[in-house]
């Protein structure tokens, strides 16, 4: 598989009255073609800003993508795209689904028209019965209805003529997905697509995203704060904390062999249905650091149970555990104490 997207040393800041908020502080990851990865973290850890940067949606000012950041889409840096290239890339090649579908959809346009708008903008031709013909508004509308059917909206013909406020929460999210998939993007970013929804609807939407990903071989970046949601969708997981990546690896490695105290704490903080014990939940005391003045050392040092002197002084480098599993923590340093830590610190070779 080839790399579809590479993000290299991405740094994004927002200039506010209080000073410079360093939302993303050197994030590097890549997405392969047809692969689903997840970015997990608390609110304010910079995961949404990362997503917006990839879509070219950072508004400057107040935002600023720092010099030295690179976002390579098929080897080309999208930060250097001109307006025309950008508008082709955004919507045509990549698409995003937002958390709040009602705010993201246009309330004054019917859902069908919003899909048509996207199609007319990005596609010149369309396949009808195996032949390529010029895209007209009428054909686009037919395609829009087809898209609505594909995402599982009943009575798609009638529904296409309705406005977003006539849809329920889960249906709006489906409509968003239909718009996003209309131009068959190669890259889909789902920014907390199910956070505002009920569990039953959440399961439906996640199934839909998974099916479409397999069907159309789209790469998906799933952004969420809920580790449960990603367990059966993402192949690889990136854990972010206050603008940094603290751990990355295969889903199995992250869930069964977490190597960073933050990942361990996140996993323990979720009460599980399949476990019977009723002991106290492991909570992470304190709150994430202020990104106006990020701590000098490890960002998690202020809340970490295993904090050592060096953690407050110097940011740890990533330790490689093989198979793409990396964690940035001083506990993996050869000189660090090996007792009382929540994970095995030895480098694992399989």
């Amino acid at each position, binding site marked *: 598989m080839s790399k579809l997207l590479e993000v290299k040393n991405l740094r994004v800041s927002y200039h506010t009255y209080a000073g410079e908020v360093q939302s993303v502080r050197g994030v590097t990851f890549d997405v392969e073609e047809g692969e689903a990865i997840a970015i997990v973290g*608390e609110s304010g850890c910079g995961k949404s800003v990362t997503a917006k940067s990839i879509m070219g949606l950072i508004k400057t000012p107040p935002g600023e993508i720092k010099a030295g950041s690179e976002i390579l889409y098929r080897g080309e840096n999208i930060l250097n795209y001109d307006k025309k290239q950008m508008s082709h890339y955004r919507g045509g090649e990549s698409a995003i689904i937002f958390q709040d579908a009602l705010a993201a959809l246009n309330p004054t346009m019917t859902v069908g028209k919003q899909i048509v708008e996207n199609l007319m903008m990005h596609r010149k031709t369309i396949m009808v019965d195996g032949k390529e013909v010029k895209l007209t508004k009428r054909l686009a509308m037919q395609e829009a209805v087809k898209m609505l059917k594909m995402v599982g909206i009943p009575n798609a013909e009638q529904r296409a003529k309705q406005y977003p406020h006539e849809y329920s929460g889960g249906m709006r999210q489906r409509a968003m997905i239909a718009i996003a998939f209309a131009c068959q993007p190669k890259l889909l970013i789902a920014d907390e697509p199910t956070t505002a929804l*009920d569990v039953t609807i959440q*399961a*439906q939407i996640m199934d839909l995203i998974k099916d479409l990903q397999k069907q159309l071989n789209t790469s998906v970046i799933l952004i969420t704060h809920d580790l449960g949601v990603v367990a*059966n969708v993402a192949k690889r997981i990136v854990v972010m904390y206050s603008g940094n990546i603290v751990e990355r690896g295969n889903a199995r490695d992250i869930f069964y062999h977490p190597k960073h105290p933050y990942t361990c704490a996140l996993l323990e903080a*979720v009460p599980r249905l399949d476990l019977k014990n009723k002991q106290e939940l492991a*909570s992470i005391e304190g709150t994430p650091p202020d990104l106006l003045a990020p701590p000098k050392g490890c960002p998690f040092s202020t809340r970490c149970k295993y904090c050592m002197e060096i953690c407050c002084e110097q940011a740890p480098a990533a330790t490689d555990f093989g198979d793409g599993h990396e964690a940035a923590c001083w506990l993996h340093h050869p000189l660090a104490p090996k007792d009382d830590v929540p994970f095995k610190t030895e480098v694992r070779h399989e």
Partner: protein
Amino acid sequence: MNNHVILDVQNLKKYFQVGKNLTLKAVDDVSFQLHEGETLGLVGESGCGKTTCGRTCLGLYSRTDGKVLYKGQDVHLMKGAEKFAFKKEAQMIFQDPYASLNPRMTVSDIVAEGIDIHKLAANKKERDEKIFHYLNLVGLNKEHANRFVHEFSGGQRQRIGIARALAVEPKFMVLDEPISALDVSIQAQIVNLLIKLQKEMGLTYLFVAHDLSMVKHISDRVAVMYLGSMVEITTSEELYENPLHPYTKALLSAIPIPDPDVELQREQTRIKLEGDVPSPINPAPGCRFKGRCKYAKAICSEQTPQLKDMGNGHCVACHLYNQ
């Protein structure tokens, strides 16, 4: 926990008129009892009437029919001194920590409002002591007292809301989705705090939430609501081990578990619910769940199933268990 019933809800109904001949049946014939020192979890999808039920229990909404008895007295018929005393004993914590605190008041004024109204402090010194005591109790400190609400994070705001509720020394609290607006790591903090406070002060909780895994963790008993009516009520262990109602089963199997292997196994056995919750406006007669239920029979459209005890206080409202 003892057997002393603190709250007795009998056939409670709450309808809203939403237009000519349109009635929204938010809570329709709901009955349950709450024992002293116990936590009852009330779960369901959004729009199932769980929040309305919680609010009606406290008298924040008037009722359409039925009774809510707090220690034997009807909440909706209380007047004067009686009602004043009830308001001191029963408190509420709201879902949205941003909207439920007055942005123009300092934290100390927010916490002290109840103390002042119920005259729980004899003088200024005692009042301050009380404020600091409750702030301490919820994990905030003295320095926070003179700040305004906008200076706090979501988790801290929820703590202020809890301190405000505790300040009047309540016996009974309705927790209306107290954690759903918070991050996972902060949720655990707040839930631990709530459990600790309950043990120390002998509080009774009505815990309204849609997050079943957290409800299981905190509750002694759980009641499942669907479209205004109660479909199942039992102890939390029993509910998760032996769910009876098809809706409860579907709800449980929809909850993601942070474990890839378990998820893979569950994939085959998962009960998928199609479609959305139907509108509670002028619902059709019969079982409310029949449109999404795969076991639906003719009788489900004709007769509304009643809660029936299946033994050990495990009650379920479903025609499947009515033979």
